[in-house]
């Protein structure tokens, strides 16, 4: 009878089955339909039809989807555990580089210097043999493993130190920034063996499919969508579980959580690593679609932008983050094309506007409006917290 009154915790699987947080089903629905319609319209509809989705739009959307996944990963730690990472671009980029290294190896002897093993930039810098950390990247499974492992491990090590010594709030944000900045500088160095400023580029094919081919693009697009959907489910799974509630507890009252017997640092570490892995995957899917990965992905500015996507969409409302990523990036694409001189005003203005007038982001705010209409039907822990977020 208690169950009737409020959501009782029947375990994460059950709560995932019985209902996703606000708008979750709609969201997944949209992803599903997009995954079906876009390829179809691209392949079947004639270019003239207004509903035909041209190929360049497909890979553009694919790019957005990757950004969305990245935003999702940030929302998971920021919205729910109150960890503001200003260095999440680092994990994204590391995932990207892992994939990039695979694609590089796939080029084989088709590089300009025709060296069977070494990528062009190495030939060029007089490298005689492949550095050890490039071994194995010619195997796709290994690369995929690294895509998740490298960011995961970095996140684990970094988080292990940071959370154990209880670095919180602004301090944490700043050192995450320091992390990504250090990596930025490191990857700029040509001696590192990652192609320096030019990064990795000039990719030919993935798993034998030509990257230029429309089919491949559609494939990657759909793959990204699937990754996003899965990522979303993972996040829901976590946030719906009791662990999710512990995270919120940590966000709202860390010491209370400690005195209730939870090892806060482990919880933070866990979610931080999960988030980093998601970011890595996003990066890995991003690289083949844009055809280049280079150090500027590590730049602190990029990481800050990701946070802004989440804020615009609505912190602590998973699919809000996705929405934010889409809106901001679409805006960027559109404005840079249509108002090349003035787009920065618009983007900057958008950020100021959201913070001033939509403090909970689009989804958060609209959520509270909806709540106003519907009579007191609570219990969706995703919508409420945005209201009572205690800033870190």
């Amino acid at each position, binding site marked *: 009878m208690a169950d009737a009154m*409020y959501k009782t915790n*029947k375990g994460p699987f059950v709560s995932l089955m019985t209902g996703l947080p606000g708008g979750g089903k709609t969201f997944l629905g949209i992803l599903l339909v997009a995954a079906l319609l876009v390829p179809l319209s691209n392949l079947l509809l004639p270019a003239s039809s207004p509903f035909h989705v041209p190929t360049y739009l497909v890979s553009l959307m694919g790019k957005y989807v990757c950004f969305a996944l990245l935003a999702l990963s940030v929302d998971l730690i920021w919205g729910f555990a109150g960890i503001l990472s200003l260095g999440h671009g680092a994990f994204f980029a590391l995932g990207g580089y892992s994939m990039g290294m695979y694609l590089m190896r796939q080029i084989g002897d088709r590089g300009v210097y025709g060296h069977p093993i070494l990528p062009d930039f190495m030939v060029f810098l007089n490298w005689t043999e492949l550095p050890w950390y490039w071994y194995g990247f010619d195997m796709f499974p290994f690369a995929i493993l690294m895509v998740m492992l490298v960011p995961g491990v970095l996140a684990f090590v970094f988080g292990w130190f940071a959370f154990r010594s209880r670095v919180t709030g602004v301090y944490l944000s700043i050192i995450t920034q320091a992390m990504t900045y250090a990596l930025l500088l490191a990857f700029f160095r040509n001696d590192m063996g990652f192609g320096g400023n030019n990064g990795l580029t000039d990719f030919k094919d993935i798993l034998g499919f030509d990257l230029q081919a429309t089919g491949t693009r559609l494939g990657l697009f759909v793959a990204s969508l699937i990754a996003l959907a899965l990522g979303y489910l993972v996040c829901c799974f976590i946030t719906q579980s*009791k662990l999710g*509630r512990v995270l919120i507890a940590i966000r709202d009252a860390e010491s*209370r959580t400690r005195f209730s*017997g939870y*090892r806060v640092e482990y919880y933070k570490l866990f979610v931080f690593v999960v988030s980093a892995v998601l970011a890595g995957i996003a990066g890995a899917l991003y690289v083949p679609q844009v055809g280049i990965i280079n150090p500027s992905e590590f730049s602190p500015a990029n990481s800050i932008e990701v946070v802004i996507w989440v804020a615009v969409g609505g912190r602590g409302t998973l699919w809000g983050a996705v929405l934010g990523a889409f809106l901001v990036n679409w805006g960027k694409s559109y404005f840079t094309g249509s108002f090349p001189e003035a787009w920065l005003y618009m983007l900057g203005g958008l950020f100021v506007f959201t913070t001033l007038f939509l403090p909970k982001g689009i989804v958060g705010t609209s959520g509270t409006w909806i709540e106003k209409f519907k009579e007191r039907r609570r*219990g969706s822990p995703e919508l*409420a*917290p945005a209201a009572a977020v205690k800033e870190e």
Partner: protein
Amino acid sequence: MMSTQVKESKKQDLTSILYLDGVSVSFDGFKALNNLSFVVEPGEMRAIIGPNGAGKTTMMDVITGKTKPDTGEVFFKGGIDLTKHDEAFIANLGIGRKFQKPTVFESQTVFHNLELSLKGEKGVMTTLFAALNDAEVARIMEILGVIRLTEKAGDLAGSLSHGQKQWLEIGMLLMQDPDLLLVDEPVAGMTDAETEQTADLLRDISKTHSVVVVEHDMEFVRALNSKVTVLHEGSVLAEGSLDTVQNNQRVIEVYLGR
């Protein structure tokens, strides 16, 4: 875990639930605790009073592992050296703490607040896959009753009144089912009626648990009618029944000023 406890066991009497000996803490120069020593017996209810800055909260911090003492011993259940452990571990040992300012998880329902405080394994993975069984639900309902919040179970803790938050926090302590409760000013900002009820509540609790209450409100302390320890400048000034300490000359000096 048991084994470590045994290893740590020391010569002093193993019967006491809480044992502080010569504990001193100082924050850059200022001595918050100064060679503080006292003992709480199992099942005992102890009221601790003292002017501001007497070191009451610091003492709590030391016991719950938030602050490490510079010198002195702190033992729990006779054998366990609390100075060696962190908050989470100590909480799981069975020491619950209620803060001076009521702290609950405002953005979650009363029910979930209690659920989070459930006694049990609190590792990351277990929590991830945790599901409530009927016994646990029953337990939560029971505590909801005890703290008189059954109707509000579905509300956000943030929407509760001050007094209700105080109770909810006590309820969360009870969920942990600790052997020792540290309660810091439980009736601050409560109406007389609420204060009454709280006193009753604590008296009930003390039947089954050891309780240490820090409080200013003399009426409330009297209502608790328990042994009283007076702290002053970080060390014990007097100890005994409320009347005896109230007639103690030095206590009067400290409270009324010389």
